[in-house]
């Protein structure tokens, strides 16, 4: 008879302390990068370390980051939403239309959020209801949403918004802390808790790692994905309120090309584009890095496109370096053995 060892063996909860794991994490790498950029910028331009300037610079990333939080969840769940910039345009158009018709600020905000949610619901239904690949669906809705804006506005613009509406993009909560910056901090905390501390967040990770197994574990995969698309629509609506308020006007070409910047921010933040892993602190750091790079180059009057080369290189290098390093260290280990 085969002896099945029955002496229970103790399996510890964790091997490494949280601190030890943190040191090797993506977030710590990003912190180093962020600090390096911060220091470089401080030396490169005398204008960088000025609270008002930094506050102004925060507008470069806050709106995109709002969407990036929700996008991070969508990407972790293994999907993607490329229609976010188009949702901004459509939402802004809807609000402009309402403002033209004489609605006041609270109503405009409600309309903005509702339009964002509506667009998210369309994406969600197409992806989860019909089971279509999200990358294609959202390329389609991207044209559809922005196209609708173009049909409504053509070459016109909505330019008259109530004075109180200006607060969202131009108002300050306290000293240099703008409303947008405050919203960014609140959204970061809310999404951080949602992803890392709740059942919902856990389900998102499970779906991204293995949707079939998650379904077999009783997780309502379709419903959760639908909610994620709703959230992304909602955040795009929120970003649209801020951006529209900041610009004080709506054109159908508003926020053109932002979807790729948002995705870049999320990927730079360490979210695996194939789903399954990533964190909100990482996305926050990526937002700060992208904002500082934009601003730093701007202070030196370097054209924005040169900055985008930098971001593109950063994107590939930050992902490639750990891979190359891992390979080399394995090779060294082997040759040493």
């Amino acid at each position, binding site marked *: 008879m085969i002896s099945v060892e029955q002496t229970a063996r103790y399996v510890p909860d964790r091997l490494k302390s949280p601190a030890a794991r943190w040191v090797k994490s993506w977030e710590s790498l990003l912190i180093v990068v962020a600090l390096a950029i911060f220091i470089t910028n401080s030396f490169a331009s005398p204008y960088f370390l000025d609270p008002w300037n930094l506050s*102004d610079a925060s507008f470069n990333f806050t709106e995109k980051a709002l969407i990036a939080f929700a996008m991070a969840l969508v990407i972790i769940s293994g999907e993607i939403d490329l229609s976010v910039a188009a949702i901004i345009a459509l939402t802004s158009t809807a609000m402009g239309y309402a403002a033209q018709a004489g609605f006041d600020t609270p109503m405009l905000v409600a309309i903005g959020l509702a339009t964002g949610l509506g667009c998210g619901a369309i994406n969600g239904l197409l992806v989860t209801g019909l089971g279509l690949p999200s990358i294609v669906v959202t390329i389609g809705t991207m044209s559809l949403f922005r196209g609708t804006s173009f049909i409504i506005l053509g070459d016109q613009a909505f330019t008259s918004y109530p004075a109180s509406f200006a607060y969202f993009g131009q108002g300050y909560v306290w000293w240099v802390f703008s409303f947008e910056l405050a919203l960014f901090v609140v959204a970061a905390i809310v999404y951080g808790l949602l992803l890392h501390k709740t059942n919902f967040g856990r389900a998102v990770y499970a779906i991204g790692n293995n949707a079939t197994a998650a379904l077999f574990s009783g997780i309502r995969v379709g419903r959760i994905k639908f909610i994620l698309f709703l959230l992304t629509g909602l955040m795009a609506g929120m970003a649209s309120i801020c951006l529209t308020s900041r*610009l004080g006007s709506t054109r159908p070409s508003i926020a053109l090309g932002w979807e790729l910047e948002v995705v870049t921010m999320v990927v730079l933040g360490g979210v695996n584009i194939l789903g399954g892993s990533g964190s909100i602190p990482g996305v926050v750091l990526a937002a700060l890095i992208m904002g500082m790079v934009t601003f730093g180059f701007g202070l030196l009057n370097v*054209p924005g496109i040169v900055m985008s080369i930098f971001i593109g290189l950063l994107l590939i290098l930050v992902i490639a370096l750990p891979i190359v390093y891992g390979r080399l260290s394995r090779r060294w280990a082997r040759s040493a053995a």
Partner: protein
Amino acid sequence: ENKKIALVVKALGIGFFEAANKGAQEAAKELGDVEIIYTGPTTTTAEGQIEVINALIAQKVDAIAVSANDTDALVPALKKAQDRGIKVISWDSGVAKDGRALHLNPSSSPLIGNMIIKLAADNLPEGGDVAVLSATATSTNQNVWIEEMTKVLPNYKGINVVATVYGDDLADKSYRETQGLIQKYPNLKAIIAPTSVGIVAAAQAVTDAGKIGQINVTGLGLPSEMAAHVKSGASKSFAIWNPIDLGYSAAMLSYDLINGAEAKPGAELKMGRMGTLKLDDNNEGAMADPFIYDASNVEEFAKIF
């Protein structure tokens, strides 16, 4: 210490704005204590210009002279600049009144509106169908000129404007829109493109369709870009103001404001060799008449801009 004047353009790399920069540099040399920061986004978006303007505010420049991608969207950012003591003017393509001290029109809109239709009509003694190829939907000046053109249309007997299409200041889109016009209106005699991107694309499309001689492309364009088309006959003549003068004047006006000049209706501000700018009720002023280029002079100007 040098005064810093930022010349913010719609997008970097456009010949017209490069020429304006040349003019501004000339003004700086003339003034001595001025440094020109030539900057702008790489695509013609308002968001891009706002980022640039924020960076300029942070650098505490003394003046910003902007050719705007969007009349309204820049206003909050420019207001902030003014709040921080920066003088702001717009030139070429304006911003709404709240956002700037004054606006420098390259020419007056009625003059331009009249000029573009006149260029078409002069070559059509018997009249005929003409179409308008406008620029991006988001730039204001084209629309104002077309409006002015429509006002004076009755003065040109037999000229019939059949359509207005938009090429978005993209070469390929303008090209395609022109193709659409050629197909749809077999009797088309002229295309008016009051945009430097559109006029080149339209001339190219007309050439490719083999319609040289039947359809005359005219409007506003740059001599360097149009020289070949004037030579081939696709375009008999076109007009433009001198962008070098425009950049020069913008820099001069900014300098005048930095030195305490006040921009208010009726005021006259100094523009160096270009004379003075008289402001109207909207704090706007016109620099000069547009200038006509045809086979006789285009080669010469093509070397400059």
